[in-house]
């Protein structure tokens, strides 16, 4: 940032104030107190009492870059987000400097994109302050669900399996199958979508399925593979739970309670 800004900023209509000048004004804000670049921009706009619909892009860009310069340690991902908005600001300024034959209509204002985003974001922030008030009251009220149930229906305290455990079981099973059945199987087209639906229906009906048994019932390797990926997907997207009671035992799969409820509602 520090190296590039002098090259870009000569397009600005005012000389670039050194970042230190702002520190001298008597406030010092660290970049990491802002939720992101939009938060920082809103802060700057408010501080300067600027009308959000008529932002002096040059001045705000200068302030904004001043803050970036002051960064001490922020991680690269975050920095990229801040730099992205800096680039947007400079792009907007460049658009505004382009000579035009006729005056721009309001909806053609190059600042429009930014203003819309800022307004949207400020609404989110306002909603957050209201939601925070609710949270603060609710958090003090204890419900009975806090006390863990003695006998949960199914989701006791089982060890949830990682996808790798599932994969291992699967390959174990495929090996077993390979050993006792070496016929060449003609592929039937199985789509993940169809299989996924089939699997969810089955889970609904039976509530619990036996992982190995389920795969053994498949006619072709392809179909078994497809179902395997479906299960992985369901577990990954937290729709289903896979549980192994003991090492080397079979793995049981069921729908998460909330997923079952949602599905029942649909």
């Amino acid at each position, binding site marked *: 940032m520090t190296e590039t800004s002098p090259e870009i900023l000569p397009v600005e209509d005012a000389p670039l104030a050194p970042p230190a000048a702002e520190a001298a004004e008597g406030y010092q804000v660290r970049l990491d107190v802002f939720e992101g670049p939009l938060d920082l921009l809103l802060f700057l706009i408010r501080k300067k009492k600027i009308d959000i619909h008529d932002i002096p892009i040059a001045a705000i860009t200068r302030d904004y870059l001043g803050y970036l310069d002051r960064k001490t340690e922020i991680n690269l991902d975050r920095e990229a987000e801040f730099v992205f908005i800096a680039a947007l600001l400079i792009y907007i300024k460049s658009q505004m400097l382009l000579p035009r034959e006729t005056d721009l209509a309001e909806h053609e204002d190059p600042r429009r994109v930014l203003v819309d985003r800022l307004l949207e974001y400020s609404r*989110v922030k*306002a*909603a957050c302050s209201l939601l925070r008030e609710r949270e603060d009251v609710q958090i003090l009220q204890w419900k009975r669900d806090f006390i863990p149930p003695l006998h949960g229906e199914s989701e006791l305290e089982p060890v949830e399996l990682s996808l790798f455990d599932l994969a291992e079981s699967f390959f174990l099973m495929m090996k077993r199958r390979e050993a006792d059945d070496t016929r060449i199987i003609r592929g039937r087209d199985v789509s993940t979508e169809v299989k996924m639906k089939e699997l969810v229906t089955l889970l609904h009906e039976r509530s619990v399925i036996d992982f190995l048994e389920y795969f053994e019932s498949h006619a072709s390797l392809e179909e078994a593979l497809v179902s395997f990926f479906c299960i992985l997907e369901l577990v990954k997207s937290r*729709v289903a739970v896979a549980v192994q009671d003991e090492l080397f035992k079979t793995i049981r799969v069921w729908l998460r309670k909330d997923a079952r*409820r949602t599905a029942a509602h649909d």
Partner: protein
Amino acid sequence: MTDDLKALVESLIFVSQEPVSLERLQAVLEGVPAADIQAAVDELVAGYGAGERGIHIIRAGGGWIFSTKPGHDREVRRLLQIERKNRLSSAGLETLAVIAYRQPVTQSEISAVRGVDSTGSLKTLLDKKLIKIVGRKKAPGNPLVYRTSEEFLLYLGLDSLEGLPSETEIAKILEEEKAVEA
């Protein structure tokens, strides 16, 4: 309405760990008119709301649920030996707010509104079960689609999504902020 019904409804709400809706109560209390059940609930709510009780019945997530009153938080925590309940981080709350208002919504849509990558916050919210994945969007990359969960309503004490702060309330906050600056 009889006192029996009131007592019955009370125990049903008490045993349930999630909000009990009028429909659920009706299904259990076969043949009892909804108006009677509603009247029983209303009386219970009013009774518990009175000063001398430590617990009350709140309306959240489309039903009724018992909870302790806010003023007893410190002692309850002492009993349960819990330091404090953590509020959501600002990033988490922001992400949650975007999902609540924009749902169903994808990660990139959320990040676009916030101007910040939201992957980490999404994971936290999923772990807390405040949001859920409802499927994939038919768009390049088939991104996951998020919605708020039932727990979300309970967490913020909202009866339904309709109870989220309205445009007017939000506009009022923004006006107030402006007024402070001026």
